């Protein structure tokens, strides 16, 4: 078992959240996502549940927790769509796992890191969704519009930065 030193990043920056926050924030993100898209359909480019999944994963720095958080949020999201349940669940499971794994290595409280992380994970989420649609579901007409996905990544990043600062307030020191 690897020993943790006093200065280990995992030891000094691992955060936990109260059960209420753990439960309510993802649900609130999903409901808010549905409401903003109802308000203006162009806002469907946003992915608030993805932002929340990334935040919890990098904050907890536990790949298992990140995987389960991503899977839970993704499955809830899938249940509201007309598509097979599990598409977003699988994509966000992978994103949660990688986000938590990266969170152990780098300083995720840094603004530049957060920007890069959100941009990269938004693109990764789009690529995984495309692969699931194309390979697992056999949708030959599924295409990936790179310009559209880059715009989506930029918008998600812009929205994610203030949300991360807000959610920092819900962190509970160990």
């Amino acid at each position: 078992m690897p020993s943790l030193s006093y200065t280990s990043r995992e030891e000094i920056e691992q955060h936990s959240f109260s059960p209420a926050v753990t439960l309510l924030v993802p649900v609130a993100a999903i409901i808010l996502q549905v409401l903003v898209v109802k308000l203006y359909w162009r806002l469907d480019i946003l992915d608030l549940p993805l932002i929340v999944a990334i935040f919890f994963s990098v904050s907890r720095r536990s790949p298992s927790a990140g995987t389960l958080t991503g899977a839970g949020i993704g499955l809830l999201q899938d249940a509201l769509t007309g598509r097979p349940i599990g598409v977003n669940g699988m994509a966000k499971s992978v994103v949660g796992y990688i986000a938590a794994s990266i969170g152990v290595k780098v300083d995720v409280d840094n603004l530049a890191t957060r920007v890069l992380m959100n941009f990269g994970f938004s693109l990764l989420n789009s690529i995984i969704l495309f692969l699931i649609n194309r390979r697992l579901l056999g949708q030959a007409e599924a295409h990936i519009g790179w310009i559209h996905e880059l715009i989506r990544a930029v918008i998600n990043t812009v929205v994610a930065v203030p949300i991360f600062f807000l959610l920092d307030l819900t962190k509970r020191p160990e």
Partner: protein
Amino acid sequence: MESFFSRFKNVLVLVVVLLAQTIGLAIQVRRPAEQGAPDGPHVTLLRKWVIGFVTPFERFFHGIGYNTRYGWSNYIDLRNTRQQNRDLQAEVARLRLEQSELAEDAKQGHRLQAMLNFQQHYVTSTVAAQVIGSSGTDQSRVLYIDKGSNDGLKVDQAVITPDGIVGKLREVLPRTAQVLVINDQSSGAGVLLSTTRIRATLRGSPSGRIVINNLTPDERIKPGEQVLTSGGDQIYPRGLPVGTIETIAIDPDHQPYTMIQLKPAANLFQLEEVLIITGTQTDLPKLAQKDLAAGLATAEQRAAAAKAAAEQAAADAAAKTASDMVAEKLPSIHEAETEPDPTAAPGTTPVKPTVQNPAGVVPKPLPTQHADRYTPGTTPPASTLTPGAGHPAGAVAAPQPTVRTPRQQESPESETASPNN
């Protein structure tokens, strides 16, 4: 063994989670086979829980927005209501006329359908519903409405607006229902091109557009052509507007087929209220029959009025023709040839033209070329005459008798011309 699980715990969790979801996906994709069809019982249960949890929040926030808009538009913002009312009344009048014009065609169409034993399905009952939510993602175009099985809704019922079709019910819960919009990539509908009468299948696309991609190139298909439902899918009644053709291009993925993109008739992205078709019948609904009868009555009234006007115009024309004939034979009473009367008193109004007097003037004799005792103005007043005295103007030559041939006697020209001679 323990160290293996503890060492690879995170990876194992990821693999198990992904594997479980992959198996779940495989089960869902295997059944049902039909795209856009409702889920199996286990999937429906999960969806029911999530939808049942989320929709109260959607309903709550939708209620706030709706009541705010309702209060504003019905109690405060009434500035243009009178003008709108006038416009609507004018539109109703115009539509009544249009209805009467189409009523006869509709009646003839029904007669022909009956002769051909054609089963047309008419919408008899609808349920109005408010859109309270959406899927929240561009991967799936579904909507949530505030009516469910408690209101008589069932799976696969068509959802429309007055502008055109919207989609069909995919999942129905007691107090809410999920609508699969026609621009979702798993949607489809049987359609008919209105001008060319070509049947096709409409599909949604990942980009949210609606397309027809099962037709080979045809020169008759042009942008702007209206697309209607064909009724062949047993979901949407025949004849509902779907949209208009926007672009036609060769489908690069499915040559030699074309990719026809449509502009939807209903605004699929900003829907507030929809109608769910809960009943159809093969006979024309009573209300529609009443409207059709009213239209036919209006058409008959218009036809009768038009006939009366035509008869009146024909009578006028006939009368005018007769007077014209008389006028030709009496050139002196033509208006164009009539010189203004210098002896008329100033301020007197000229006589208006009438059927009996088309020239509009009192006929006056032409100036006399050879005056005699019968010429007007040459005879002195009786008060100045002395009995037994001669003519004041002297001896007047007696008129020479003229020999008239029988032809001249029969001719009206000679009759009418004689007073002037």
